[in-house]
């Protein structure tokens, strides 16, 4: 039995619409028009204990809606969710005691309270045993390097500091599952690294199941063993990231600096992408020509000063994938 089971999830919102301008506003007072937005059409997946799953997709694809249903905030129109044997929105109180949630764009700490007071309040709200709380808190404080922040009111923290405190706050009751909705949004590079490192450690050393949504593909590359791509309310792909890359954009790039001006090359399955003086950028499909064979073929005929192979940037892979599936936001 998987820890998280999601079957045929669907959810629609009704959005009030009005024509632009004064006239539209007046008309809206009399007769309101509603538009139905299908946030989720059909989402199914399952997750085993201890997995770390990345959830990606363009804006408006349904990632956050899925997280909100899994965490018990929203109720789906149809479909089934079972998490550790509980239905989140039906057994909400029992369910939420076992999960931790961080929404990167909202705060759960109290703006005017020092971090430590917010933590203490959460201890009481989750009815955590005081001894146990002390141990957990001290460990989280050390892992997230919160020592110097504890006495500061939340409003004085930088975004990166606040996010670390938010993640700590979500874990004080030792949940077995952690939902992270865009935890690295707006963070600078060191803060992103700190968050990634912590999440990885939490997953590997404490066995906490993590489900994370993000637009930062480096989060995915650094963390997720498995990726679900969601678009238009459906699961478009569910596979390890490397498999996704191989399917979508197997192409590699070869950068060659020649000793003289770059020669004309005519090799099967190889395309010249860019030519600049002595340099060439070549695109090739490793399933047709392997990188060593291609390099050997070039160096056999030409004097080469430098050569290196690159994979397409992860953003490029994902953008291509969204394009292939027409998943981009309208």
């Amino acid at each position, binding site marked *: 039995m998987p820890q998280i089971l999601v079957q045929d999830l669907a959810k629609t*919102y009704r959005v009030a619409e009005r024509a632009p301008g004064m006239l539209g506003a007046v008309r809206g007072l009399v007769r309101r028009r509603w538009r139905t937005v299908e946030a989720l059409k059909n989402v199914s997946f399952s997750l085993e204990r201890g997995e770390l799953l990345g959830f990606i997709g363009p*804006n408006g694809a349904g990632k*956050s809606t899925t997280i*909100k249903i899994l*965490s*018990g*905030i*929203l*109720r789906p129109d149809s479909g089934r969710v079972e998490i550790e044997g509980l239905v989140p929105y039906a057994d*909400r*109180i*029992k369910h*939420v*005691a076992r*999960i931790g*949630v961080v*929404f990167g*764009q*909202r*705060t*759960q700490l*109290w703006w*005017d*309270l020092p971090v430590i*007071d917010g933590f*203490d*309040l959460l201890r*009481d*709200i*989750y*009815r955590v045993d005081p001894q146990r709380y002390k141990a957990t808190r001290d460990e989280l404080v050390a892992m997230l390097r919160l020592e110097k922040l504890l006495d500061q009111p939340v409003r004085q923290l930088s975004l990166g500091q606040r996010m670390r405190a938010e993640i700590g706050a979500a874990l004080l009751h030792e949940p077995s599952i952690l939902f992270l909705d*865009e935890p690295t949004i707006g963070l600078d590079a060191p803060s992103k690294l700190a968050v990634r490192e912590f999440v990885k450690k939490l997953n590997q050393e404490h066995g906490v199941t993590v489900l994370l949504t993000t637009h930062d593909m480096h989060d995915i590359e650094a963390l997720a063993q498995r990726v679900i791509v969601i678009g238009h309310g459906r699961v478009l792909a569910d596979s390890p990231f490397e498999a996704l890359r191989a399917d979508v954009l197997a192409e590699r790039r070869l950068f060659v600096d020649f000793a003289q001006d770059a020669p004309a090359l005519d090799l099967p399955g190889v395309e010249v992408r860019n030519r600049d003086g002595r340099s060439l950028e070549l695109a090739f499909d490793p399933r047709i020509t392997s990188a060593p064979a291609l390099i050997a073929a070039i160096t056999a005929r030409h004097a080469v000063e430098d050569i290196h192979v690159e994979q397409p940037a992860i953003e490029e892979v994902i953008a291509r994938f969204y394009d292939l599936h027409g998943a981009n936001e309208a």
Partner: protein
Amino acid sequence: MDALRPYAAAFSSRFLLMMQYRAAALAGFFTQCWFGAVHVMVLAAFYLGAPEAAAASPISLSQAVTYTWLAQGLLAVMPWVGDPEIADGVRTGAISYDRLRPVDPYALWYVRAAGWMTARLAPRVALMILAAGIVLPLIGQGQWAWRPPASLSAALLFALSEALAIALACAIIMLINIVVVATLNARGVNILMQPLVIVFTGNLLPLALYPDNLRTFLFVQPFAGTLDIPNRIYFGALAGQMAWVGIGLQLFWITTLVTLGRWWLGRVMARLEVQGG
């Protein structure tokens, strides 16, 4: 004991946080002194200008003056706006976090409203007792002062009735909160509530001074229990059995409005939508 821990913590953290706002308490106090003085002068003009009508009035001038100071001192109990923290949470989406807490959502918001209210109440009522109850008689203006309760039993019944007034006002604030969550906007309902509350609690004019044929209605409607009933118990206009009738009415409205609020919040939360991202 452990079952109540979340609620006790939510109440006390809100209470302590609100107690930090000393400048707001002081400003509120001065405003209330001003309004209190105006009310007292208007009441004095009515009572002294028409002695026969004043003699027939169900409450005397000194009782009406005490009523005014009570109304000003207890102003924080008036349920005329929803909890600003809830309104804020609706706007920022932070109320989704409230859905993630393993607690009863109605009780959590109710105790938070109670903490918010009592923290504003405590400093204001203390300052008002000092000003209208102690300073005014000391400077020879005793006839315009806040008088002590009619008797010891009136004082004890008042303490009970005032506690119920706070509980009732929180139940009304919860209904406002629910409208805020359902409509995603606090302005509309807050603007609607203000005139209702000012008139029907007795804040504008003691309810006993309205025309006879309105009095029964004014006595049994829910807002009376937040101000008028405890006030009348305080100076003995509601005594003995009538005091208990008043307290019974407060209990009735608390039960009714809490039940209504719990049912309604459940419905609103079931079709909650979290917009954008």
